[in-house]
């Protein structure tokens, strides 16, 4: 099993619903976020392009944050989800520095926090909160090892990219372009 998420930049309107849904689902304190929205404008008026991306942890297959964690708090869970075990984290911040996507933050409770792909929801057969709430239905989530999963099918059908592939982290967050 290999969990992955694909986000359709052609549909995303950048409303940040994914951000607030994540916050209320996961008790992320106000002032912090596990996912966020990036808008990139290209060109000169009126020849313009805009790409909107809902970003989060890329749940890399070759995650530098897992490799550098001195306590094993950062680890891979089933399906390749990168997680932090809060009570094993000493808050050293090595993982934060190692992440090319700036996906991790120091939680005020003293540990490092990040996107979990809503692992607790997956165990109950639900999708991550961001995917479930998105008004544009621009997010696809599932198992890349299953060729019939929503995410496998959309990645086969559409052109996509990953972010900073040159970092060699093998990200599992795909942006449909």
């Amino acid at each position: 099993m290999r969990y992955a998420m694909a986000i359709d930049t052609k549909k995303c309107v950048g409303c940040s619903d994914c951000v607030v849904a994540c916050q209320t689902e996961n008790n992320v304190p106000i002032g912090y976020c596990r996912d966020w929205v990036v808008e990139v404008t290209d060109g000169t008026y009126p020849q313009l392009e805009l790409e909107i991306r809902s970003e989060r942890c890329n749940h890399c297959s070759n995650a530098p944050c897992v490799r550098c964690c001195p306590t094993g708090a950062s680890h891979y869970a089933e399906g390749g989800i990168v997680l932090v075990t809060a009570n094993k984290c000493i808050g050293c911040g090595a993982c934060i520095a190692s992440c090319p996507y700036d996906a991790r933050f120091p939680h005020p409770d003293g540990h490092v926090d990040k996107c979990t792909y809503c692992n607790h929801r997956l165990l109950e057969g639900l999708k991550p909160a961001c995917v479930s709430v998105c008004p544009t239905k621009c997010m696809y989530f599932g198992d890349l090892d299953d060729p019939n999963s929503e995410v496998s099918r959309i990645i086969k059908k559409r052109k996509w990219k990953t972010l900073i592939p040159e970092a060699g982290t093998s990200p599992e967050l795909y942006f449909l372009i």
Partner: protein
Amino acid sequence: MATRRDFIKVSAIGVGGLALAGSSYGLLKKVIPAVKGNEKAQKVIPTRTPTYCEICFWKCAAWVHTNDEGKITKIIGHDSDPHCNGRLCPRGTGGVGMYYDDERLKTPLIRTEERGLQVFREATWDEAFEYIAGKMKKIAVEHGPECVALFTHGSGGAYFGHMLKAYGSDNIGAPSFAQCRGPREVAFQSTFGDLVMSPERTDIRDTRCLVLIGSHIGENMHNGQVQEMSDAIDKGATIITVDPRFSTAASKSKYWLPIKPATDIALLLAWIHEIIYNEWYDKKYVEKHTYGFDQLKEHVKDMTPQWAYGITGIDPNVIYETAREMANASPAVIVHPGRHVTWYGDDTQRLRAIAILNALLGSWGRRGGFYFPEKVDVPKFNHPPYPKPKRNWRDAFPGMYNLAEEVIASGICDATIPVPERECAFKGWIVYGTNLIFTLPDQQKTIKAIQNLDLMVAVDTMPMEITGWADVILPECTYLERYDEIRVSPHREPYIALRMPATEPLYNTKPAWWMAKELGKKLGLADFFPFETIEEQLDWQLKQMGTSLDEMKKLGVKKYERAADDLYLDENEPFEFNTNTGKIELFSTAILAEGFDPMPKYTHHEEPPEGFYRLNYGRAPMHTFSRTANNPNLTDLMDENTLWVNPKVAKLWDLKNDQYVKLKNQDGFVSHTSIKVRVTERIRWDSVYMVHGFGHRQPQMKRSYFRGASDADLITRVHVDPIMGGTGMRGNFVTFVTENLEA
């Protein structure tokens, strides 16, 4: 001595013998057990109670989740509700912040110093009602009850409306008409004999071509529409966006027409010209259903794309091509009426041009165009007849705005300032859930009107600018803590939704139904409130609708069958439209009868003087009007607005990104607060843009106080639509003030 590597090994053993350093990913994946749940996360299926959202007017049905301690944790859209299809927007999801905002109004307040100074004392509910009822009785005796008006925006306003009608006034207005969608309703009523309604009857889900005229769906987060636009993108629909700003919607469009502001009517007329003279219109439909085609054809004879190019700056070939795209998609095409359309004062005529275009394309009453919505009626309970008011707001505007079917909120404001020739000015305002200082143009006038009142009551959940002007402030509990009326709204199929409290109200706050009833009793109107509790009333109503309060508490929403199978026009049947001619009026007999042009004309609007830029404003998806700027969850997403400035303009003025500026308008008014510059190619060089709703000056809202600037500060010039009294607000021009920002 332990090396770093040793340390890692030791630590790793603690996690269950994992060798982290140097291990391959494949191995790790197999040996690491899945973590069962996240210790910080909530239970997935906690207790839930139904509601419909009150953060905006879309009113999506939802479930409010509470934990073991009865604390609200999250709000999730109702899967069966067509307004949201299980997906709330960011504001709805962040609705929890409205409940948890510790700067809410907490107890009734009575003014102790003159208006303009925010000095209040805490009062009991009884004292507050005594005060209001005393003043209302006095106004009724001295001036007549018609001299009290209600401004309302939000569900609970209905209860105050009932109370006011029982008292003897039908001056009940919302800024959502003359400051917002009024022109489109009048224009569509004049053309099709029917309204656009809310949620809009646009069949975006099945459209093949969606045309947006300054409408920024996606930034305005009208949930169902955003969802359907996304579906339409999936299905490959063509989107055409006309906007001087490269909006989010423009970025999703096949065609973006970066129009010169205030010239939309010229473009619309050129499209009409192309569709008629290339014979691209739906001939059978036009012949069968419309009135005035020949006059229209003659009217637009010279309004070619070349003519429009000189006015709009849009390439004639693009005008031709986009007209053709619409025609190819016909009748599954929507030239969207938009929502906030009070721009330049000829707005009804612009919306008429939009309506005419839809008529020519045959989209009204067709799949992928505009459907015929249906809603169910909630049974009215018995009460004594309302007294018949002797006067109303229309007396202040004799012979004017006859086509306006709703009360003009700005008109009530105007009619509050006494003038010798008018018999009565308004003496009392009750303001429910609308921050008039931000929603009405010309703040000086609003304040002048308030200073002429004998009574000013504000009902709100938050201390807004408007509550600072009230004599009595009634703190309402949030929608998460109260019952309200049953939600009925028009849709493809009729649905109802229930709102019930998820928890007890915090502080000394109360629901509107209770306030209206208690105030009504003080006014001697107890007979108008026959039910002891709101549960009793709702249950009585729901039982006649084939359900009950108990059932609705479990269901949240309920779907009804349509009375007839008439979502779209039946092509084989005759159809009578509710207009003077019974036809779709391309040539409007109703508008002509009022003395205005029966067909829209382009008129030139004033342009910004040198060194000034047109002030444009709009929405952000995470905020509603000026109402959510202090919501902790939503402020977390966006805590101030920015001023969009084209790089050419920024260079000219030496403006840098993130620099704060103030704005000064053509009348010399300077924004009260400063705003951060955002240099972006996404805005034309002749305009600047900001999101509405920031620049609060209510010190009791600390998260929003002085964050960003308010467009409302700068809208001092108003172009009134002579047909329906709408207040055109986009004829204001601003320049930059970069010095003495603290002053």
